């Protein structure tokens, strides 16, 4: 393996963005997108651990049918905070704010994002929101579920609802500004020659995600303010006792939160496309179809929110329309799965950690997507709505899908980010263990759900006990699968073998320079003259020679 491209050897001897400053101030006041990415990597890792600790309590409680580990109120707070922390403080920023921040300018040949200081501000806003959430936890928690359904949240709950809502409200602005920044960057700062259909699918996926962030998040913000106002000063918006309508809340909430599901999966799809293509030395099959299907998912994703409300009292005809559209949003997802599989055909496939995670993503996302069809089918949804079937389904997408992709992407780009190599064997092992642990944890929940076990149950009928026990045992395996990369990557950042500039011979523009990149990314102006994913199966032993201008 050797550095890719001419001139990189001389560049790599210069200072990297990591050596540009060592003071705390140089990190906390940085406007370098690569350093801001690090601020997010550390923050979301902390919140992932917080959310995981809550999941651990939940799994211990559910190992037996009796509610004997914590009180019902504590349990309710555990799953509420688990959801709030994992959704808004881990999953939504997970890939966009870390890999997206780091890679978008590098992938499009720009020196930074369009608004570098705004990017730093976004992280401070995230942190401010995080402080409210931490306060919520310390003050005694919130027990509304991450969905904050009214009138329970606005009038009945005796927990710290306003603090929790304020945290989510604030972190929403971080999302909006990050999305805005990416949109402006992708539109205005692409290198000459880098046309839209030469963009890596990762950029497409972050772009589509940004559109959703900008268009949907304000609706959530307004909704949460209304809940706060109803709770504090009693304006009647959602509580029927005050003349409000609780279903209005559900419409507004899911108008954001269903598209938010795509915020939590599209970036994972982007990462998977990069990884599968590189490790099989093949251009992504059906590139344009892949790009269009990303946009289609983002667009149709806005029109399906009512499938969360099939049993709410929503009109049957509205349910029919939402049901049909929910089936339709699965079409572009299916296109993506078929094309990922086809990319392998006649490839030259190797199974580094990133590839194992990517293939795991395809498997888990496929199962998560197909069970989504079951939920879109109104008659069946009536039965499985709000049961463990739903819990299993969205964990397959958001954890099986997004977390697998996030970890796969972190391994793949780790040499670029740190200039160090992680331990490959441990990496492969962690991908396999988390795949097994994940299925062991969540597959039994499909069965429990179809047999009728409702979600958010502190104690439950004994007939579901064996399934829940398997799930709890699986969670232990899954926890090992998640701790390994934390140790492996954490260790390698300091003590790992020095990485070559382009250890995977990847074709992306982000790999053309030194690893880790210099502070301003590119020392010479970049001009792009090639199609994306210019891989050839016979280049596997030879470095790619970028033929850019």
């Amino acid at each position, binding site marked *: 393996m050797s550095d890719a491209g001419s001139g990189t050897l001389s560049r790599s001897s210069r200072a990297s963005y990591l050596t540009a400053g060592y003071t705390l101030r140089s990190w906390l006041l940085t406007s370098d997108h690569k350093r801001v990415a690090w601020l997010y990597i550390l923050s979301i890792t902390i919140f992932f651990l917080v959310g995981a600790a809550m999941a651990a309590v939940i799994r211990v409680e559910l190992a037996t049918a009796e*509610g004997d580990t914590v009180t*019902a*109120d504590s349990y*309710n707070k555990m799953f509420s905070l688990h959801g709030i922390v994992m959704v808004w403080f881990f999953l939504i920023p997970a890939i966009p704010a870390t890999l997206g921040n780091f890679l978008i300018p590098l992938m499009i040949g720009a020196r930074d994002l369009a608004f570098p200081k705004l990017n730093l501000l976004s992280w401070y806003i995230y942190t401010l929101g995080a402080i409210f959430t931490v306060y919520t936890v310390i003050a005694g928690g919130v027990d509304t*579920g991450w969905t904050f359904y009214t*009138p*329970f949240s606005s009038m*009945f709950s005796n927990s710290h609802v306003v603090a929790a809502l304020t945290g989510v409200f604030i972190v929403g602005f971080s999302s909006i500004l990050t999305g805005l920044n990416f949109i402006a960057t992708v539109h205005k700062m692409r290198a000459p020659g880098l046309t839209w259909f030469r963009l890596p699918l990762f950029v497409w996926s972050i772009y589509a995600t940004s559109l959703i962030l900008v268009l949907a998040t304000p609706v959530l913000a307004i909704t949460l303010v209304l809940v706060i106002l109803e709770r504090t000063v009693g304006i009647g918006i959602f*509580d*029927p*006792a005050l*003349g409000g*309508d*609780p279903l209005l809340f559900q419409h507004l909430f899911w108008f954001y939160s269903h598209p938010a599901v795509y915020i939590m999966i599209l970036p994972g799809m982007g990462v998977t496309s990069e990884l599968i293509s590189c490790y099989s030395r093949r251009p992504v099959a059906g590139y344009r*179809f892949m790009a269009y299907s990303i946009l289609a998912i983002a667009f149709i994703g806005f029109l399906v929110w009512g499938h969360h409300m099939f*049993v*709410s*009292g929503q009109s049957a005809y509205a*349910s*029919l329309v939402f*049901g*049909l559209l929910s*089936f*339709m949003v*699965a*079409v572009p997802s*299916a296109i993506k799965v*078929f094309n990922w*599989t086809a990319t*392998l055909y006649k*490839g*030259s496939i190797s199974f580094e950690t990133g590839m194992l995670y990517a*293939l795991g993503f*395809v*498997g888990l996302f*496929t*199962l998560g997507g*197909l*069970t989504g*069809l*079951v939920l879109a*089918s*109104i*008659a*069946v949804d*009536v*039965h499985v709505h*709000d049961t463990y079937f739903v819990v299993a389904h969205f964990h397959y997408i958001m954890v099986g899908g997004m977390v697998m992709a996030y970890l796969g992407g972190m391994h793949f780009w780790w040499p670029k980010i740190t200039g160090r190599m992680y331990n490959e064997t441990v990496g492969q092992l962690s991908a396999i263990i988390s795949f097994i642990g994940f299925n062991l944890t969540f597959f039994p929940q499909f069965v429990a759900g179809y*047999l*009728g076990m*409702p*979600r*958010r*149950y*502190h*104690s439950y*009928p004994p*007939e579901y006990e064996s399934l829940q026990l398997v799930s709890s045992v699986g969670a232990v395996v899954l926890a090992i699968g998640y701790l390994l990369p934390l140790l492996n990557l954490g260790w390698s950042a300091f003590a790992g073998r020095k990485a070559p500039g382009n250890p995977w011979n990847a074709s992306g523009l982000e790999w053309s320079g030194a690893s880790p990149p210099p502070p301003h990314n590119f020392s010479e102006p970049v001009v792009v003259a090639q199609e994306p994913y210019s891989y050839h*199966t016979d280049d*596997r032993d030879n470095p790619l020679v970028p033929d850019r201008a």
Partner: protein
Amino acid sequence: MANAELQTGAVQASEFAADVDSLFLVMAGLSGIVVAGIAVLILIFSIRYRRSRSSMREGPPDFPLALEYTWIAVPTLIFIGLFVWGARVFLQSQAERNDALELRVVGQQWMWMFYHPGGARELNELHIPVDRNIRLLLSSDDVIHSLYLPAFRIKQDAVPGRYTQVWLNAERTGRYRIMCAEYCGTEHSQMYGVVEVMEPEDYSLWLELNAYDTTLAAQGERLFNAMACSGCHTSGSTIQAPSLEGLYGRVVNLQDGSTVVADEVYLRDSIIVPDRDIVAGFDNVMPAYNDQLSEAQLFMLIAYIQSLTLAQ
């Protein structure tokens, strides 16, 4: 099986449950085929085209566009087919049924209350006859709850401030679980009960043993007088108020020129927020009762007003 355990999703206690299961099994089967297909393909490609093997990659493998369009069109058609099937099963479950036994359900933190037309009341237990159409009209006294009968594959939210309904026809006698499926606070997981499906003769016997002295409508009439509704809403009263006789089910002309059918929802709204739909030709002088009546009392009053029509 005499003292059988409570049944959940493992049994099919209604025709609808069987319909839902067929649909689900077909979808699960198709999903299994797709997942297995993808997995097998990935496996074959992974072995055949692994890097250490250097044959069989002649020529750039172009994908014919036809293949792309095929795997767009085929899933789309299958999805539409599955949607239509699911929609039909769903619409059937929603269709009006004749001669139904009318039951009223109120969800409250953390219990289920059931009101029979004959006046009997039950807490966390529901006795119903087998093979009989049943209409459950639901409301909630506080937060949103969801009445879930897994053995019947039905679920319906009980939403404060509005009525929702669900149809039920039990095919098998037995004892089945009732659960709350919408998170409703501390004791959400304790908000459960039992549906006991009985042979018609057992059900009649149960009704006799649990008979109340008055029907739900008669309880409503008592309330009607106690709350002084009768002061205005009877013929010959000095204050002019719309007559309630024959009102239920009739088309009502409103002051703003629109019309509304006087169903349960209209009656409920007209009691708690009288100034919302004012009947043509009347001034609204009625006080709002939104803080003074429980959902159960509203069900009684409505049953009484309904009886004024049904008796004719």
